[in-house]
């Protein structure tokens, strides 16, 4: 573990990404303390450009709402959507993949067909349908994103489990009489985790983007301020007021970038082959 942190910290990209993420999380957690009023409140004239009115460094939007307050409050929702939907996707994908890989045969085949089903239906389209069915709300959005993003997890985990299943230490567990669930949870999954973690860091980013795309199509949660909402809503007035969409856009960009950098960093840190040898 120490070793892991050391390698992680040696990767400048990963460190920068981690710092940005920590900052974003801090904003999400403590930001509402700095901006205690609702981000929906109309506080000033609409379309105030940034850096013109005191107290409104990023200007106001089409209804005269504070863009900065929106970004601060939006961090909470966007990150929440990203993290929770990723967790949920992992919660489905890991067991399905693990069981498919471990048991193989008919069960594995059935599980993979099931996965394939979710994979062949265009994911964005499926997300739209699901949100439309469940009616847009933070819960349904998270759910829809999770439902469309678990198949890659399942496939990845299955691949890992398939190769780990034949490892000698797994066989050793079998011959000492361990149960299936014990073998899956204690022997196999801990060793399959590193690629999953890397994938997960990318999924968080994808989820944030997916939420913004849903918002763009009018399928966001109308009661919660999110970056995706801001970008989508500001888009229509981009010609008059670039700042309404550019600032939240940058927030998304930076967060996604940070998560990707973390992913890369993790990838390098968790891959012993990559961090040991030179070329």
């Amino acid at each position: 573990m120490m070793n892991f942190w050391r390698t992680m910290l040696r990767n400048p990209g990963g460190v920068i990404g981690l710092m940005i993420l920590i900052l974003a999380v801090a904003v999400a957690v403590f930001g509402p303390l700095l901006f205690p009023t609702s981000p929906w409140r109309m506080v000033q004239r609409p379309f105030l450009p940034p850096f013109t009115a005191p107290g409104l460094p990023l200007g106001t939007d089409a209804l005269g709402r504070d863009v900065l307050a929106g970004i601060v409050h939006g961090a909470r929702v966007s990150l929440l959507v990203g993290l929770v939907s990723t967790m949920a996707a992992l919660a489905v994908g890991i067991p399905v993949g693990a069981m498919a890989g471990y048991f193989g045969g008919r069960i594995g085949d059935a599980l993979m067909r099931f996965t394939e089903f979710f994979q062949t239906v265009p994911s964005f389209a499926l997300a739209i349908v699901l949100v439309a069915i469940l009616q847009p709300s933070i819960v349904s959005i998270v759910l829809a994103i999770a439902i469309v993003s678990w198949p890659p997890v399942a496939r990845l985990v299955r691949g890992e489990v398939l190769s780990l299943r034949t490892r000698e230490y797994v066989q050793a567990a079998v011959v000492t009489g361990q149960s299936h669930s014990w073998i899956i949870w204690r022997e196999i999954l801990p060793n399959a985790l590193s690629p999953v973690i890397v994938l997960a860091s990318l999924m968080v980013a994808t989820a944030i983007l997916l939420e913004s795309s849903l918002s763009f199509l009018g399928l966001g949660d109308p009661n919660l301020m999110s970056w995706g909402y801001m970008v989508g809503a500001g888009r229509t007035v981009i010609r008059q007021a670039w700042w309404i969409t550019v600032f939240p856009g940058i927030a998304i960009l930076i967060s996604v970038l940070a998560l990707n950098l973390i992913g890369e960093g993790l990838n390098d840190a968790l891959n012993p082959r990559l961090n040991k040898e030179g070329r």
Partner: protein
Amino acid sequence: QEPKTGGVINAVIQPEPPGLMMGLVQNGPTQMVSGNIYEGLLRYSPKLEPLPGLAESWNVSEDGKTYTFKLRKGVTWHDGKPFTSADVVFSIEFLKQTHPRARSNFAQVDKIETPDDSTVIFNLKEPFGPFLGVFEVGSLPMIPKHLYEGTDFKTNPANNTPVGTGPFMFKEWQKGSFIRLVKNPNYYIKGKPNLDEIYWHVIPDAAARAVAFETGKVDVLPGGSVENFDVPRLSKLKNVCVTGAGWEFFSPHSWLWLNNRQGPTANKKFRQAVMYALDRNFAKDVIWNGLGNVATGPSGSSIKYYSSDVPKYDYDPAKAKALLKEAGYNGEKVRLLPLPYGETWQRWAEAVRQNLQDVGINVDMVATDVARWNQRTSEWDYDIAFTYVYQYGDPALGVGRTYVSSQILKGNPFNNVEGYSNPEIDKLFADGAVAFSDSARKPFYDKAQKILVDDVPVAWLLELQFPTITRCNVKNLITTAIGVNDGFRDAWLDK
């Protein structure tokens, strides 16, 4: 200025119409495109006076029960067959099966006589005040009998190649891209139409529509084609003309449905509080860019018998709070359904939510898509819901249906959805419809307006205006009360 002939107009259509057969499909885009292909018996001036259409002249009997129309001679369908009084009778039969508005408009018709090919006589059971206002192309498009008689209307292959009598003929429809109409060379008015072709472009994204106009790829943006925020910017461009005309007949009126049956909104005081809480001038100035008017009551100001002598509701949060207290409102959650018609409506809903929250109403916004919005409103599953409705020039056609108790019909999105029921109002609208002559009708409507505004069955917002944006060399585009929907018959291009 003398009209010039020739030229092509590129216009925008949004959303893409599901079909162009006006008798079967009544949605906005269909009417806009097909208004060039089909025609009605009458047209209406911006003051809503009848003008000749396929009917050359008309007269009404003293008792208001017999209407005689003389049809124009020498009119042919696009396929060359002559247009006759039999087509008129057939069209009414047809539309009574497929067109809910025509069904109620012609409910009073007892029988129709056609003494010759160019005369149609309607005999009514009782006088029907607004009868002369139901003959425009959207309410009564003429449908070719020779193509539809004895067929299953819905699956008739002719639906895909609509045939009318209008100035333009259907030529080509590339689904998802454009609809192409060409000049009808045999049009019965010599020298018309002036234009050679019209392209209706399907561009689903509002910003992209604005760009298409800006870059000169399209010349006409019918009302509602671009987001309101873009209107001032586009109108400032060189050689761009903007007009609010052409909506007099529809006079779209927006309001919030307030569910009169249950929840806090069942309380009149609460509803009045809502009226006081709304900053409608803000909505007009910021969200609609100063277009339109603040609505004073159930009737739009261009509708017949409009009365401004009604109680006033100015923006007054303090009064709203007081009324809420009187109503005994204790912070129950109130569901607000925005209209899923794009960013403008979304912003408006956000502003309204803020207004309501400011006076202490606990609002929960519920996002829907079009299908769901229609379903929830028509099944009364809401507390407050945005909407806007066409008024069709006459309170008996477009206003009363929202307030009379006979129109409380679950499952239909445009009637008395709020569930307001007041026998007095029922009677006033019933009497107003069958009275004959303006002076006889007016008192009923004056009174109805006063009562309604006090009761606040719905919270009226704005009389909307959907500006039509064109390049200035497109001339004479809008001449009647239904604007672009009446076709490009008179339009010409100044090259």
